[in-house]
């Protein structure tokens, strides 16, 4: 039982209500309810709208996951829940709901880090991590390079964005190009129809930047450059080649992400690169990472796109890992921590 813990994971840090069930590294269910459509007209997630939706969706989503997995609450070894980081009110719904489940079933509960869960989820796809790995975590709120030796013990940050996150850049540029929220998927699609004809800036890549920010990222200059380029076109009255702009922007982001990720692997002498977070769903990022890593004998691990964006399975995966590692469960009074530091895997 301890090697293959049966764990139910709850995720409510943003606009997705996710409930996943795993047995060890095997995914049994991944139920999701999203309030994304309710936020679309605001061009971003409205926290109170997300929190209200989580309250309505949580119990039905838990029941759907249990049905899909064909297990009963009584069978579980533990319950895991995202304790942070994320939107405070949204997190609290999942945390309080998970505690209710733990109280009712008298099962242990693990409050876990959402970002570590974005990394852990690949174990459901490609099995346990066998040695040290470098993780490229690229999501709506984060862009970080981490060294992962033992996920249950913690991660070591190597670098992070100094301004916008990669996903945030996708969302802002999409808005600029008149595409819906969230912007990653429509840019990914448009880019496939276009060509990277414009050379947009690659943040923090000059020789000087590399001295002080070797593993850090910056995407706000890129976003501004795209905005200026589009404005100039509009001022001229010439049409904006949306697909080409999308492809060029995406190329710039993926270029920097993969370049720095592989540099981090080589610097650390690590053979495995794992990519997680919503932007890891990007088709160009996946292809470019594989291509460039292969040249250096580095193996890329990235889960299927559906497991890259927020979901409950990733929380269950990390929870299961912590149970198997013999980590002590969280106490019932742990808070939802909207700014939870990556130095904490669990609470």
């Amino acid at each position: 039982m301890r090697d293959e813990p049966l764990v139910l994971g709850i995720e409510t840090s943003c606009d997705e209500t996710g409930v996943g069930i795993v047995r060890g590294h095997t995914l049994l269910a991944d139920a999701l309810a999203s309030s994304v459509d309710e936020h679309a007209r605001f061009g971003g997630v409205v926290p109170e709208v997300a929190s209200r939706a989580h309250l309505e969706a949580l119990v039905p989503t838990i029941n759907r996951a249990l049905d899909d997995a064909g297990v009963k609450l009584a069978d579980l070894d533990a319950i895991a829940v995202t304790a942070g980081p994320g939107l405070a009110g949204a997190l609290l719904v999942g945390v309080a709901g998970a505690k209710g489940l733990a109280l009712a079933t008298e099962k242990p509960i693990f409050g876990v880090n959402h970002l570590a869960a974005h990394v852990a989820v690949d174990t459901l796809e490609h099995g346990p991590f066998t040695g040290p790995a470098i993780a490229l975590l690229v999501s709506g709120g984060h862009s970080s390079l981490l060294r992962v030796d033992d996920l249950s013990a913690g991660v070591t940050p190597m670098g992070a964005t100094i301004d916008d996150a990669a996903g945030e850049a996708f969302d802002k540029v999409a808005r600029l190009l008149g595409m819906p929220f969230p912007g990653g998927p429509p840019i990914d699609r448009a880019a496939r129809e276009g060509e990277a004809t414009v050379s947009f800036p690659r943040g923090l890549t000059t020789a000087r930047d590399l001295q002080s920010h070797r593993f850090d990222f910056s995407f706000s200059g890129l976003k501004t450059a795209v905005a200026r380029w589009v404005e100039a076109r509009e001022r001229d009255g010439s049409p904006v080649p949306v697909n080409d702009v999308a492809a060029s922007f995406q190329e710039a982001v993926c270029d920097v992400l993969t370049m720095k990720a592989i540099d981090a692997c080589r610097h650390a002498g690590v053979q495995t690169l794992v990519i997680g977070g919503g932007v890891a769903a990007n088709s160009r990022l996946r292809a470019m990472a594989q291509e460039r890593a292969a040249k250096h004998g580095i193996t890329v691990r990235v889960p299927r796109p559906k497991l890259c964006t927020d979901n409950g399975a990733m929380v269950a995966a990390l929870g299961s890992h912590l149970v198997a590692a013999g980590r002590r469960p969280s106490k019932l009074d742990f808070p939802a921590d909207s700014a939870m530091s990556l130095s904490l895997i669990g609470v």
Partner: protein
Amino acid sequence: MLVLVLDTATPAITAAVADLGDGGIELRAQRVTVDGRAHGELLAPSIDAVLTEAGVKPFDLSAIVVGVGPGPFTGLRAGLVTAATMSSALGIPAYGVCTLDALGAATVGTVLVATDARRREIYWAVYRDGLPGTPPKVAKPAEVAIAIASEGVLRAVGEGAEKYAELLGVSAEAPSFPPPIEFARLAADRVRAKAPSEPLTPLYLRRPDAVEPATRKPALAAGER
């Protein structure tokens, strides 16, 4: 019949185990902790404590009774979602009680019941001999003073009335927060009749602020390392 009572619609984080016997309703254990910012932290340990103190296992419970507000959103949801997952996991019904009803239930005469809605507003309703005379609303104390002028209100209860007694023009009396036993009393008929479980619809009374979308803050800024 053993019932778990929860309410997080006010700063008083409330958990209790009530016993609905033939002779009446009795509280076996209760925890009321006043902390406006710690509903997510304190509710679950309070539940654990009252179950232990009452010597009750979760599976011994027949129902869960929860305050559905009105109350500040985030805290309110902590109680509702806890009640919802517990009732689903235990396969027992959950019943909602308006938090103002519980606060006003033991009052006599015409009384204003008011809780703090933050932003210098109160959630309020008028009760006559413990029964609701007006529907729950949210408003500024000065507006409530005008609204109740013709109701013949002599007294007020609740933290919202204490805080704004001067603006409201009525003197405030105890209790400040809803007594746990009143939730059990107000749901007793439903519990005894084994009425179907209810959808626990929160009384938000305010629309979400659809202002700027959340700005993202990385948990790990580059300089933090």
